[in-house]
């Protein structure tokens, strides 16, 4: 997938949170071979150095980083966090999250569009975490976003693609825009479906980090992305309501009863 002129090495983006240890994180990233890893910013007291150690680990992975604005609820919070992330991580990529509803971690799409506009004007390359709403998508593109990241289901829910119809419509409506399913994917089969629907990439975290064996699951997702992408490029057949025999009927033996 191309993201703002950069070809990602893989259509799999992987979050770095929730792993049991830095070693499991590093091994999972190696197994997933992601095109980017997501990172964040948090308060750190002096002398704690957890953030510095984490940064050294991520740098050693040699994978592009995509900082997020997780936990932001207002335009101002998101913009300030993005500005801080750009300096710390030395990238103008930003996964823009503006949360509007706490139970579902649903994006506040009005604030999202406004923050995307401001950040684009400031030179950011915005990866907006949004819903599958067509009108919001159009506004995000008008605000300067060159790709979209609709949710499959609420963050961390693992429910997969809740609204296949809506995601299909979004894909069909903006055929040229790179699109990433961000959030909600729980299993490799969900990832395969995302690619079969025509999506260009997926972003996952909890599905790997909270699997019983994160490293194996990371590899499973890497393979699922390959499978899904191959299948998508191979132009799957259309569904039918009625059965159609696959074995030729011509020349079939007739046995008298």
């Amino acid at each position, binding site marked *: 997938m191309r993201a703002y002129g950069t070809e990602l090495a893989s259509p799999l983006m992987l979050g770095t949170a929730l792993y049991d240890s830095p070693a499991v994180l590093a091994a999972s990233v190696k197994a997933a071979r992601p095109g980017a890893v997501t990172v964040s*910013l948090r*308060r750190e007291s002096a002398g704690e150095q957890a*953030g*510095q150690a984490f*940064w050294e680990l*991520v740098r050693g992975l040699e994978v592009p980083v995509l900082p997020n604005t997780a936990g932001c609820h207002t335009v101002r919070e998101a913009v300030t966090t993005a500005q*801080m992330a750009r300096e*710390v991580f030395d990238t103008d990529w930003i996964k823009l999250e503006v949360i509007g509803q706490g139970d579902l971690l649903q994006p506040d799409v009005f604030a999202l569009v406004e923050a995307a506009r401001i950040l684009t004007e400031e030179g950011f390359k915005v990866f907006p975490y949004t819903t599958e709403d067509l009108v919001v998508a159009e506004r995000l593109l008008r605000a300067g976003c060159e790709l979209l990241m609709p949710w499959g289901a609420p963050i961390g829910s693992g429910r997969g693609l809740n609204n296949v119809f809506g995601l299909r419509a979004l894909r069909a409506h903006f055929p040229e825009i790179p699109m990433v399913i961000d959030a909600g994917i729980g299993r490799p089969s969900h990832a395969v479906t995302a690619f079969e629907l025509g999506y260009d990439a997926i972003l996952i975290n909890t599905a790997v980090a909270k699997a019983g064996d994160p490293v194996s699951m990371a590899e499973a997702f890497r393979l699922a992305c390959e499978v899904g992408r191959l299948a998508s490029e191979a132009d799957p057949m259309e569904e039918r309501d009625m059965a159609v025999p696959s074995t030729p009927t011509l020349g079939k033996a007739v046995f008298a009863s």
Partner: protein
Amino acid sequence: MQIIVNDETKRISGRFLSDILIELGYGESKVATAIDGVFVPRSARSGRELQEGARLEILAPMQGG
């Protein structure tokens, strides 16, 4: 003077952000700063003076999804 650092009240002697970061023990740490909700880039820290009661946010890299 007293300022609020990451939601904790701190008594500090420095007035400029660059000095305050050293005083608080951040030294050369990879952190980003904001004062009263406004980002202050690294290049502006030495010229940025804090007022009594200012809210200073100091953020470091962290795991994220």
